[in-house]
């Protein structure tokens, strides 16, 4: 292929008009003034909400079905988590899958939203939600237990759809 190096011309030499400076000022002002007529780029955030697409990696949540969470407490997510944010403790149930997490905590101060937990989970039990508004006022509040991690599967359709279609 024709890849060549270009030696650019000397650009520093300003011509007469550029040296005069005032025409350049006028040009700059024209450019800035033009911006007045371009559409507004910013968003008035709390009023105008940002709605992420299915590929968005928000806060990781546990998928909840009618009879409880999908998680079988295999501990794979807590092993892979690069930020060591997840703590899982397994318990036994009489449900079909026999195991469930008796304790499942994600420390949201540690989580880096990498999505690895979701990627390795063999049960599609932990996925990244669209929730990006996380506020807490102290360290204890930042450790999300099962009560705050469980999210009904109906709210996660976008993400599950995305995972099925575009990932493996």
């Amino acid at each position, binding site marked *: 292929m024709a890849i060549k*190096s*270009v030696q650019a011309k000397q*650009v520093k030499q300003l011509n007469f008009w550029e040296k005069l400076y005032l025409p350049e000022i006028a040009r700059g002002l024209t450019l800035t003034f033009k911006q007045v007529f371009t559409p507004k780029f910013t968003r008035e955030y709390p009023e105008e909400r940002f709605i992420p697409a299915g590929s968005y990696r928000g806060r990781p949540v546990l998928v909840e079905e009618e009879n409880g969470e999908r998680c079988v407490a295999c501990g794979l997510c807590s092993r892979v988590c*690069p930020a060591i944010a997840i703590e899982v403790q397994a318990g036994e149930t009489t449900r079909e899958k026999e195991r469930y997490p008796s304790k499942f905590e994600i420390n949201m101060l540690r989580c880096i939203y990498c999505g*690895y937990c979701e990627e*390795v989970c063999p049960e*599609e039990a932990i996925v990244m939600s669209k929730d990006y508004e996380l506020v807490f006022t102290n360290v204890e509040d930042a450790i999300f237990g099962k009560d705050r991690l469980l999210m009904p599967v109906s709210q996660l359709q976008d993400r599950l759809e995305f995972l*099925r279609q*575009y990932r493996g």
Partner: protein
Amino acid sequence: MNIGSTATLERVTDLRQRKILSKVIDKDTTISLEGRDPLENTMILNMGPQHPATHGVLRVLLRLDGETVEKCIPELGYLHRGYEKLGENMTYHEFLPHTDRLDYLSPMSNNVAYAMAVEKVLGLEIPPRAAWIRTMICELARISSHLLAMGAMSMDCGAITMLLWTFRERERLYDIFEKICGARFTTSYTRIGGVANDFTPDIIPMIRKFIDQFPAQLRDFEGLVNRNRIFVERVSGIGYMSAEEAIQLGMTGPCLRGSGVAHDLRRDEPYLLYDQLDFDVITYADGDCFARYMVRGDEMKESVKIVRQLLDKIPDGPVLANEAKQVLPGKVEIYTKMEELIQDFMLVNFGQQTEPGEIYSCIESPKGELGFYITSDGSGQAWRMKIRSPSFCNLQALQPMCEGAMISDVVAIIGSIDPVMGEADK
């Protein structure tokens, strides 16, 4: 000796500071006013690490004679997080999100560089579509990084409008990144053996739209300052770096090309799809701040060219290599097949099994040559990982560039080197 005690730590810090200081001071630096003209003395100025124009936490110690910089000692390491060591303590897979945080202005190309290095260790081939996606995101990352460099350097010289405008364009790029991988900044998008997920159908039109409007925007940016006498005279002729010295210092990327050396890994050691693409290697011979600034502007145009060519030939197929022993299996297979499920567990727990050996793999990141040197002992994690970060090497040029310059030039010089401290300090 009790290493951990505060007193010892204080002593070490003190010693270190004194050592640095003694580099800048010579015997006549101490100020004595008796019988002498105060203007004969030199002054030590401590710039950074919190100075906004040092692009992060770079600390520069300057010895000034009036307004002239007599000596300049850059001190690096304020953002040292030990990434090389971290890389030796986790599996190859787990380290990937950490690469986002090296050069945080172009995380996509860091991801690519790291994944390519590990693939070299494993001897893994990636599918054509994955290579295509990687080339594409590398070029988009280059545009976004150069946009910031351009805006930040202009702002350092007083043109604040530029920064706002370039940030707006970057925002559009980040919207694309967010659609691609789900995060704007910390992308963690590549995987060993490919990329995490395929493009959704709306991404190609988004990139097309961006590429169509971008050249006009770039013309506006350039119209604003490139021929403006204040800016041109402010940045031209300062921070001179000759081609020979630049090579000796190990500079790469736009800084090296700004000194007139046509060295670009995309052309000289083609990787991914670059050997099938038609683009120019931009060089400017002047070797001053303005030349380095101009190189970045023109490189963005080349990137636009590359993205246009890429958009014309989109290959189909998988985005992750189908290599059971080394690449995480697909989700559907994990859910349904026992073999893949076991594979998933093995890979996550023990990592890929590698051949013992040493490799070096590098790419042309927006800042220059970004390389990973991995020594593998056959286990799932690197025995030694060295990161050759372009910003670190480029920053070595700060001293020769600044010495003899005016104090007000220092800011412009740092801006033109465009260091990212996350990468320089690792």
